[in-house]
């Protein structure tokens, strides 16, 4: 999405950081229950929520509980009772939340939780990185990664629209990079409340499973073991979860399209192509690193190199088909990650892109770049190096990978 050259500020214009943008996105979505617990670099986000509720800007029940495990647990209860729910977490908080976190998609609870992404200990570190979010990519939550503060604000209502869609009914993590987006300040135009209300429509989050004396039922009865109908029952629900994930791809596209029609802001729902028409090599990026990468692509284009870029917005479900198509004509791909896939000794996004490209008839070389760990800055110069390496790989050179972009930063 590109913005006009100059923008007139309006009464809905704010100049805020990503955490506040997320809090506004949440407030505009009118959750009934919000649970909070602080963790760097998410803390100011929950402070904003508490402030909004204290000031009456947000009519939600504020549950300031004793830890992330309970943050998600109180939301499970509230959601099963019929409430729309929101929270945010990061890194160690996400790790502590894992037990109810794993359960959320199985219960098909359509909640939205912002992940303010951060590197996880150890080594001890409180700075940005995407290791937390990437570590939970197999758990069954939808994951969308934002590039700008405005996109954070807009993506939260979009996430509710996706989560609560009858064909999906899955929880969504709206991810934004710790530090660079969480604390970075930029212009955000708040959508009008009526626009968000009309976009989200009627709320109905527990039609499928509820804890209500007016409709008594057992939620999550024990599934029997081998030698009975237990395992086949279990498979039916697991397949249902997969079907929800698969259905989410189209729902995500439609929700972004709908949002664009109402607000004029058309965010790329699954992936964004940048200068890919005639590109011979491509970078793949995710999150807030993308802007600097686009600047580097422009610089390379000025030098006569045909470089393009594919940004991933939706990482779960993985949009394998559109990625395979977008990268079907290049001669080499460089994937830039802000996290590590330990088992494969590469970046996790790299591993996913590699798998997606197996569908293409032509085999192209891929190279894994890992940067931005522990809050490191991935500058246009770093991306320039990644482009140069990818061009060399396209020309037939072999290169050992991963390449750690900040390895020699001082």
């Amino acid at each position, binding site marked *: 999405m590109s913005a006009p050259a100059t*923008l*007139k500020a309006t009464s809905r214009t704010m100049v805020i950081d990503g955490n506040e943008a997320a809090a506004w996105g949440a407030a505009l979505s009118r959750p009934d229950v919000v649970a909070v617990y602080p963790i760097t670099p998410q803390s100011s986000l929950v402070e904003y929520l508490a402030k909004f509720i204290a000031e009456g800007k947000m009519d939600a029940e504020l549950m300031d509980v004793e830890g992330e495990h309970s943050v998600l647990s109180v939301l499970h209860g509230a959601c099963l009772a019929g409430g729309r729910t929101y929270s945010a977490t990061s890194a160690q908080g996400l790790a502590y939340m894992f037990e109810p976190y794993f359960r959320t998609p199985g219960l098909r609870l359509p909640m939205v939780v912002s992940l303010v992404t951060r590197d996880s200990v150890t080594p001890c570190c409180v700075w940005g990185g995407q290791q937390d979010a990437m570590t939970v990519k197999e758990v069954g939550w939808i994951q969308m990664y934002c590039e700008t503060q405005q996109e954070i604000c807009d993506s939260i209502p979009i996430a509710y629209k996706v989560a609560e869609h009858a064909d999906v009914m899955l929880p969504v993590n709206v991810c934004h*990079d710790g*530090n660079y987006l969480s604390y970075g*300040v930029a*212009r955000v135009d708040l959508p009008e409340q009526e626009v968000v209300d009309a976009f989200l429509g009627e709320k109905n989050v527990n039609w499928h499973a509820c804890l209500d004396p007016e409709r008594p039922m057992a939620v999550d009865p024990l599934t029997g073991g081998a030698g009975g109908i237990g395992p086949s029952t279990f498979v039916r629900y697991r397949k249902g979860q997969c079907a929800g994930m698969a259905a989410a791809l189209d729902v995500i596209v439609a929700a972004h399209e709908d949002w664009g029609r109402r607000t004029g802001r058309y965010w790329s729902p699954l992936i964004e192509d940048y200068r890919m028409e005639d590109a011979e090599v491509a970078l793949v990026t995710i999150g807030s690193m993308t*802007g600097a990468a686009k600047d580097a692509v422009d610089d390379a284009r000025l030098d006569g190199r045909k470089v393009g870029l594919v940004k991933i917005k939706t990482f779960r479900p993985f949009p394998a088909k559109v990625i395979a198509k977008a990268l079907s004509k290049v001669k080499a791909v460089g994937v830039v990650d802000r996290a590590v896939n330990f088992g494969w000794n590469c970046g996790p996004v790299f591993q996913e892109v590699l798998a997606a490209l197996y569908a293409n008839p032509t085999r192209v070389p891929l190279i894994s770049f890992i940067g931005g760990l522990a809050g490191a800055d991935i500058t246009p110069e770093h991306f320039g190096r990644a482009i140069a390496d990818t061009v060399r790989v396209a020309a037939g050179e072999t290169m050992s990978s991963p390449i750690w972009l900040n390895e020699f930063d001082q």
Partner: protein
Amino acid sequence: MHEVRIHGRGGQGAVMASGILAAALVGEGRHVMAIPAFGFERRGAPVVAFLRFDDREIRRVTNIYAPDTVIVIDPTVARSVDVFAGMKPGGTLVQSTKKAAADMVLPSHLARVALCDAVGIAMAIFKRPITNTIMLGAFARATGLVGIDSLVAALEATDFRDAGLKQNIEAVRRGFDETIITQLAAHAA
């Protein structure tokens, strides 16, 4: 694109100043990206904040390594931090100090210095050395890149925990009025 780096100490509001400046620039139709350097902002420890603005969309969400302007809101932080690091030739220094330009050791590629006794003004207004908004006035005076009215409008939209709006408006105006600009010889053309 114009890039600004703000140096201060934890508790002095360097990060808040970058947010206020960002809001003022947005009010003038600019595109802005302001990022604090990430540290533990303990009271007294050196702090850095970055801000870039442009008439075109800004895409990079990165730190600033070659600032056009450096704002130093604390008179002594330059003892422990190289405030001129990476500065572009022809750049501007906006410094809180009681000194005159002639008494300062400045890098040769600097084009302009704007000096303001921000602590003196702050003690008069706040009874405490809070210099951040004063130095925004100094920046406006030194560069002409933001209007004083826009700064005042941005202040009006800011939540101040420790000081009043009126005091801060006075601070930004006095910072603007009481800043002394010196064009350095090498670049005086």
